[in-house]
C-alpha cells in the first residue's frame, strides 16, 4: 500500500484528471453495451474485441500514411457494417432466446475475433502515433497527453450526437420503442428485425470509435479486448440500462477508481480491483434485492 497519491496534492489532481479522461472513453464503450442490452437483451462479450478491431482499422490507416485521427470517422463506418454482418449471421438467431444463449454466442464470437485478428494482423503489439503534444498544467506538475484529451473530447461529441439521434430520428425513436416493449412496437408497425440490426450496428460503430481512440492513446493487441468488455459491463451494472448520465458518471467514476487503485495498491492490481468492485456491486445489488422481496412479503 502506498498513499503517496494523497501526500502530494498534484498527484491527486493528476490521478483524478487521468481517471476522468479515461472514464469518458470507457463510458462510450459502455453506452453501446447498455443500448444493445436494453434493446435486444443481449450481453455482448465480444464488445472489447469489436473495440480492438476498430483500433486496427485506425492503425492500418496510420500505416498507409493517413493520420490515425481520421480513424474516428472511418472506423465506425466500417464497424457498422461489421456489426450488421454479425447480427445477420449469428445474433438474429439468439436474440429472443434467453440471456445465457446470447452470452455463449457472443463469447464464441469473441474467441473467433481474437483468433482472426491474430491471424490477419499478427500477434505484435501495435500503436498509432498521433503526434499530438502534451498539455502542462499547474506549473508543469500535472501532465496530460493531448491524445487523451482528444479521445475524451471525441467520445463526448459522439455521445451527444447519439443522444440527439435517438431522440429526433425515426430509427432512434423506433429503437427506444422497441427497448420499452418490443411486442407493442411490432404491433404498431415497427420493423423490430431492422431495429435490432441497426442497434447492433450502432454498437459496433461506437466500439469502432473507441478502438480508434485507444490505438492513439494506448496500445492494441488481438487479445486485449476482455478488459474493455469487463469495464463496460461493470459501468452498465452500476448505472443501469437506459440511463445515459448514469453511464457517463459511472464511467468517470470507474476511471478515477482505477487510477487511485493503481497508485495505492500498485499497477498489478489495477484490473483486479475492477473485478473486485464488480463482485462487490453484484453482491450488494443482490442483497438489496433480497431485502426488497422480504419487505414485500
Amino acid at each position: 500500500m502506498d498513499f503517496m497519491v494523497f501526500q502530494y496534492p498534484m498527484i491527486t489532481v493528476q490521478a483524478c484528471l487521468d481517471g476522468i479522461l479515461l472514464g469518458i472513453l470507457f463510458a462510450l464503450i459502455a453506452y453501446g453495451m447498455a443500448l444493445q442490452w436494453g434493446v435486444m437483451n443481449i450481453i455482448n462479450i465480444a464488445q472489447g474485441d469489436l473495440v480492438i478491431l476498430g483500433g486496427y482499422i485506425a492503425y492500418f490507416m496510420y500505416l498507409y500514411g493517413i493520420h490515425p485521427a481520421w480513424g474516428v470517422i472511418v472506423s465506425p463506418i466500417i464497424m457498422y457494417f461489421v456489426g450488421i454482418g454479425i447480427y445477420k449471421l449469428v445474433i438474429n438467431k439468439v436474440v429472443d432466446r434467453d440471456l445465457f444463449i446470447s452470452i455463449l454466442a457472443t463469447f464464441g464470437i469473441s474467441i473467433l475475433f481474437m483468433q482472426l485478428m491474430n491471424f490477419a494482423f499478427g500477434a505484435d503489439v501495435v500503436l498509432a502515433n498521433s503526434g499530438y503534444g502534451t498539455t502542462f498544467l499547474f506549473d508543469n506538475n500535472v501532465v496530460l497527453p493531448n491524445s487523451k484529451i482528444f479521445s475524451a473530447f471525441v467520445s463526448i461529441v459522439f455521445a451527444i450526437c447519439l443522444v440527439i439521434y435517438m431522440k429526433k430520428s425515426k430509427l432512434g425513436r423506433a429503437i427506444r420503442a422497441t427497448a420499452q416493449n418490443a411486442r407493442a412496437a411490432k404491433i404498431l408497425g415497427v420493423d423490430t428485425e431492422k431495429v435490432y440490426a441497426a442497434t447492433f450496428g450502432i454498437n459496433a460503430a461506437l466500439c469502432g470509435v473507441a478502438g480508434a481512440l485507444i490505438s492513439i492513446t494506448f496500445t492494441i493487441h488481438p487479445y486485449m479486448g476482455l478488459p474493455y468488455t469487463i469495464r463496460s459491463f461493470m459501468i452498465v451494472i452500476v448505472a443501469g440500462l437506459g440511463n445515459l448520465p448514469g453511464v457517463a458518471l459511472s464511467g468517470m467514476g470507474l476511471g478515477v477508481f482505477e487510477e487511485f487503485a493503481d497508485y495505492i495498491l500498485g499497477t498489478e492490481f489495477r484490473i483486479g480491483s475492477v473485478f473486485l468492485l464488480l463482485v462487490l456491486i453484484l453482491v450488494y445489488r443482490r442483497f438489496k434485492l433480497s431485502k426488497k422481496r422480504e419487505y414485500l412479503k
Partner: protein
Amino acid sequence: MKIKNIIITFFSAIALLLSTSVVSFAKVVGDKIVLGAAVSLTGKYSSNGVHTQNGYNMAVDRINSMGGIKVGGKTYKFEIIYYDDESNPKRAAQLAERLISQDGVEFMLGPYSSGLTKAMAPVTEKYGVPMVEANGASRSLFTKGYKYLFAVLAPANLYLDVAIRTAVELNGGKGVKIAQAFEQDAFSQDVRLGILDAAKDTGSEIIIDDKLPKELNDMAATLVKVKQMKPDVLVVSGHTKGALTAIRQISEMKVDVPMLAMTHCDAAKLSKQHGKNSQYALCASQWHKTLTYKDKWFKDGMTYDADFTKMFGYAPPYQAAESSAALLVFKDAFERANSFDQKKVRDALAATDMQTFYGNIKFAPGGQNVSKPMVLFQVMCDSSGKCENKVVAPLKWASAKLIHPIPKWSER
C-alpha cells in the same frame, strides 16, 4: 486356449518389434537426423514463434548444404518435424509427448518463450531426450536440475544487470537510485531478480518497485512517481507491450530520467514504431549483428543478417539468431559424440565449448549458457529522423559511445 495364447504372443512380439524399429528409424531415417520442435505458429507468440522457426530453417539449410553432419564416417542431414503449439503451454507439453512417443523423435529443439519451455522440459527430461532450446531464458529453468536441457542464451536475470553496472560506473562507482517496473510473468520477474542482485552488489537503492499487469497498456501512475522521485535509472520489462507503452507515455508525459533501460526493444520495433521518441533508450539484447563473433557456417553477424534478410525478407531479430545457433550446437555435439545414443549426445552437449556467429557457447551444469554476455544497445537517431540500434556496452563490442545522461525533453 494354448493356440490363442501363442497367436497373441506372436502378434504382440511382432507389434513390439515393429514399434521399436519405427522408433529407431524415426530418429535417423536413411541419411537424415530428425529433430522435433513445437513452435508457436498461431496465438499470442506467433510472431516470435515464426522468427524461431525461420532461424531453425535457415540453419538446417546452411548445415545441410555445407556437407551435413558426420557421424561414424557417414554424412547425415538435418530434418525438423514441426508442430504448432498455439502459444499454449498445455498444448506444448502434449506435443512434446507426441513427438517423442508417436513420432519417435529422440532429439528436440525448444519452443518460443520461457513459459512454453517450462511446460516441455519435464516431458523431454522424463524420456531422456536432449533438448537444445534458444528462447527460454527464465532462471527457474536452470535451477530444477534438468540434465537434458541446454539453452544457448544468457539467463533472464542477466538481461539488465549490465545497465545497472554501467550506471554505477558512470556515477563514479557510487550506488544509484533505481526505479523499476516489471510485468508479472516468469521472465520479467527474473529480470527483476537480476536487478535486485545488481543493486545489492553496487550499493544502489531501489526507490520505485512497481509490478505491471498482463493486460498492461497504461503505466502513467509509475511515470508520475518517477517524475516526482527523480531516480537515476528507470528499468522497464514487460515484453513488447511494456516497451511500447513505456516509450509512448514517457514521451507524452515528458518524463526526464538520465538512463532508461528496457527489454524487448527490437521485438517491439521501437525505433520503427516510435521514431525519435525512442531515442536514447537502452535495450538489452542477446545478440546484435555488429558483434564480431565468427563461425564457419554463417561467418559473422553481418553476413547472417544479410543472408537471413535475403531468405525471409526481413532483418533477423535476436530470436532468429539464437535459434540458428541451437542447430550449430546440435551438429557439433553429434560429431563429437560420434553416435546417436541419447546419453552420449547429452554428455557431448554438456561439454560444448564453441564459438558461433551468435556468441560463445558453454553450458553451466544447470544448462544455461554462461560464456556469452548480454549486450546493450542504444537507440540513436540522426537529424533526418532515421533511428538505428547501436551497441554501447559491454565496451569490447561497442560500436558507438553511450549517450549519458539522456538530454532533457525541453532541450531536445
